[in-house]
């Protein structure tokens, strides 16, 4: 369970508040989309959840643990964070080594590491990529491997930052299928509202560091005025042609 | 300039490995003490790759048709500080020697010393001195120029010394130095200008990225510099000792060139203890005395037959290899 209570945040040295007094609660197993224009504060919310930024005011609880320095290791083991840029997320030379990175660092035995690695790759159907060099993968494959690298931690919560940004339609469809097949709490940020429509039943709209809307995905994605006021457009699948 | 394996004797190579290894070990210790040490590691890797890639870019030199390149030691340490910069350069040099035949496994220690050590440590020492009272664009240009020229001069001089101590060329010391230094002066100037241009851009865009010579706690940094210099001095003594030892075992190396210049043969000096030790080391390392062309008329006969034998064996082996290859190909066709 994720609980964000009266959270405000501004980056080091910046006077502007990136987030001001944010409140929301995400129950186990929910799929939540976070949408908003560039610079609205979506990525900042995600960074706060995993403790990449710690100097916030208010209270953030993950599975009843406050996000602060001494709890970080425990919290991060529970959260899988898939970055926007796969090339930055995947830093080991081969697929296997990258997927095995997290379980190794969390100190599992060699057998356990291997079992988790192969398991993660299998669960999204890419075990044939195991021995490939990362730089030889296509954009779509990289995205799937990125997911596997966090699945090997067996996290309760999955976070995706702009996941479909560099994917072609076919890979995007494959990604959505994989995403929908995954269990656990899911948080997705995107400008791709069709993606949100296909994967999340709840959506939070952020603008200028404030939550403008929090509720049913269908409701907000049909609200043309609200979306357009916030730099977004109706999803294609809902536009009347 | 990357030294190739053939330019260096194992003894000189090993000496340089020890010297570079000590500096690396010390740098790792220093890095570990830094507050954002974990963050430094990925930065070192990514910036190393960046330097590697930018070394491939040609820069047109105004007024001439030719082009210059970036070397990167000073650039790296102006962002990362000397210790992280040095470690990052080691990574770059290792990969260059393995994948691109720039340098070699044996010469790696020497190359790290000649390029990474001077570039990062001497370079950042100059950087720190110039930036003492705050950073300006002019100071960045000054530090880049002085830093690049000086570190490249030191590097080139070391290449000369190492090559001569290895005794692989008949080139006299004077001629060698007289060719190496001016070439590297030009290279250093160009590199200095490129480095300055890049750093000025960074200074305007994101000045907080540049290393200001203080890092985390100022006291520690000051203290560490004294230590660094002390270690440097020790290392120079070790290396100096190593090289002179080698030189004495290698009459046609350094000593020979010094002899050329001074006209003094220094024959008396050759009976001293250092020479004897070197001699005994040499005779211990070569299990059988080398039979060479130079020794006497008698060995010429065996040498000629040796060459003949060698040619016969090589041809024989290549013929076998050729047959195997044809068979393999045939096998593949059958399999398909």
């Amino acid at each position: 369970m994720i609980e964000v209570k009266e959270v405000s945040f501004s980056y080091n040295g910046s006077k502007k508040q990136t987030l001001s007094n944010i409140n929301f609660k995400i129950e186990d197993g929910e799929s939540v989309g976070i949408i908003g224009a560039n610079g609205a504060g979506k990525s900042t919310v995600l960074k706060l959840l995993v403790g990449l930024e710690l100097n916030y005011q208010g209270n953030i609880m993950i599975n009843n643990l406050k996000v602060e320095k001494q709890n970080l290791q425990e919290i991060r083991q529970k959260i899988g964070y898939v970055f926007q840029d796969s090339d930055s997320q995947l830093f080991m030379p081969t697929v296997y080594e990258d997927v095995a990175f997290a379980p190794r660092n969390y100190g599992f035995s060699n057998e356990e590491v291997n079992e988790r690695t192969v398991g993660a790759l299998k669960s999204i159907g890419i075990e044939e990529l195991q021995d490939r060099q990362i730089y030889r993968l296509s954009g779509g494959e990289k995205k799937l491997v990125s997911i596997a690298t966090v699945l090997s931690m067996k996290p309760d919560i999955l976070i995706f930052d702009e996941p479909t940004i560099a994917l072609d339609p076919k890979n995007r469809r494959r990604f959505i299928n994989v995403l929908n097949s995954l269990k656990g709490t899911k948080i997705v940020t995107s400008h791709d509202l069709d993606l949100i429509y296909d994967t999340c039943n709840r959506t939070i709209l952020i603008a200028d560091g404030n939550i403008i809307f929090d509720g049913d995905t269908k409701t907000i994605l049909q609200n043309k005025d609200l979306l357009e006021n916030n730099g977004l457009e109706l999803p294609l699948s809902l536009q009347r042609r | 300039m990357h030294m190739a394996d053939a330019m260096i004797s194992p003894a000189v190579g090993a000496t340089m490995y020890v010297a570079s290894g000590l500096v690396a070990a010390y740098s790792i210790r220093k890095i570990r003490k830094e507050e954002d040490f974990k963050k430094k590691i990925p930065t070192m890797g990514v910036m190393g790759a960046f330097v590697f890639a930018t070394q491939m870019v040609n820069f047109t030199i105004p007024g001439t048709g030719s082009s210059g390149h970036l070397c990167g030691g000073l650039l790296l340490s102006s962002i990362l500080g000397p210790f992280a910069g040095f470690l990052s350069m080691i990574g770059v040099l290792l990969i260059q020697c393995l994948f691109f035949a720039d340098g070699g496994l044996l010469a790696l220690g020497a190359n790290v010393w000649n390029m990474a050590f001077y570039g990062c440590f001497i370079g950042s020492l100059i950087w720190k001195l110039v930036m003492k009272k705050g950073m300006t664009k002019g100071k960045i240009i000054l530090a880049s120029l002085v830093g690049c020229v000086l570190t490249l001069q030191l590097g080139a001089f070391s290449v000369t010394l190492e090559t001569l101590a290895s005794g692989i060329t008949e080139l006299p010391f004077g001629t060698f130095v007289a060719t190496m230094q001016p070439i590297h002066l030009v290279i250093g100037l160009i590199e200095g200008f490129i480095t300055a241009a890049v750093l000025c851009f960074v200074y305007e865009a994101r000045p907080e990225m540049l290393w200001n010579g203080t890092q985390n706690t100022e006291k520690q940094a000051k203290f560490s510099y004294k230590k660094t210099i002390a270690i440097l001095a020790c290392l120079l003594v070790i290396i100096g000792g190593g090289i002179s030892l080698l030189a004495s075992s290698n009459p046609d190396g350094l000593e020979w060139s010094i002899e050329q210049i001074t006209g003094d043969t220094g024959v008396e000096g050759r009976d001293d203890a250092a020479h004897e030790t070197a001699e005994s080391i040499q005779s211990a390392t070569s299990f059988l005395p080398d039979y060479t062309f130079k020794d006497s008329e008698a060995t010429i006969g065996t040498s000629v037959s040796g060459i003949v034998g060698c040619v016969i064996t090589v041809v024989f082996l290549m013929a076998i290899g050729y047959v195997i290859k044809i068979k393999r190909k045939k096998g593949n066709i059958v399999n398909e």
Partner: protein
Amino acid sequence: MNKIDNAIKTVHHMDYQANHNGYLNTIHPLVKLLITIIYIILLTSIDKYNLVTTLAMSIYLILVSMIGDLSIKNALKSLKVVLLLLLILGIANPILDRTVITYIGIVPITTGIISMFTLLLKGIFAILASYFLILTTSIEEICYALKMIHMPNILITVVMLIYRYIIVFLKEVQRIWVAYQMRAPKQKGVHYKAWGSLIGGLMLRSIDRAQVVYESMELRGFDPDTFFIKKEKADKKSWIYFCLMLILFIILRFVPIFEIIGGIFI
């Protein structure tokens, strides 16, 4: 810029070869690394006038290229630069060291000529030896071998990261260069006015990338003291290979085997 294309091609080629399933690929990386280092040390320690032993050392290279079915075609490109360098150094030898030892026809053979050839051969052989190592061993395996000889984790991690991001950056530089050249078709290199912004911009981007890489590592529990590569200890086969090669080296380096063979024919 050709250099960038070549570098990308080289990395691709090496990687392809190293992950290829040849016989030498199954030998333990530590064994291959040690053999290569020993070879280079034995090679470079040969006396500068000892052409025969230097030539004899080529037998190892021929054997390895046969066992591993390796081609030296790609190595030749990188050889050019080194050969030029060694030639500049070596050319002084025939000029300054002119003791005539024998004649072939009327051409005098001097000690200087011998030592120049020895130098060139050493240069070629040393490069080929490390080239064969990297052709049959992937970077992870080399890092594992370095770990076994106690290279610190920090350095190994840095090496692996550099290797991982070389291609990413080379491709980025390639794109930048194409974009630059399309608007400045007659320039062979980057104009001095663009030096700072072109490379500086790339540098800032790489610092940002480093930040994300750090975050990604951190979120997956990065611990600089654990080393992460799957690999087994050297097996029997590898050690047998090691011993055989060592024996070969000793024969080539210290036994005048070719004088003996040549003696039979002369």
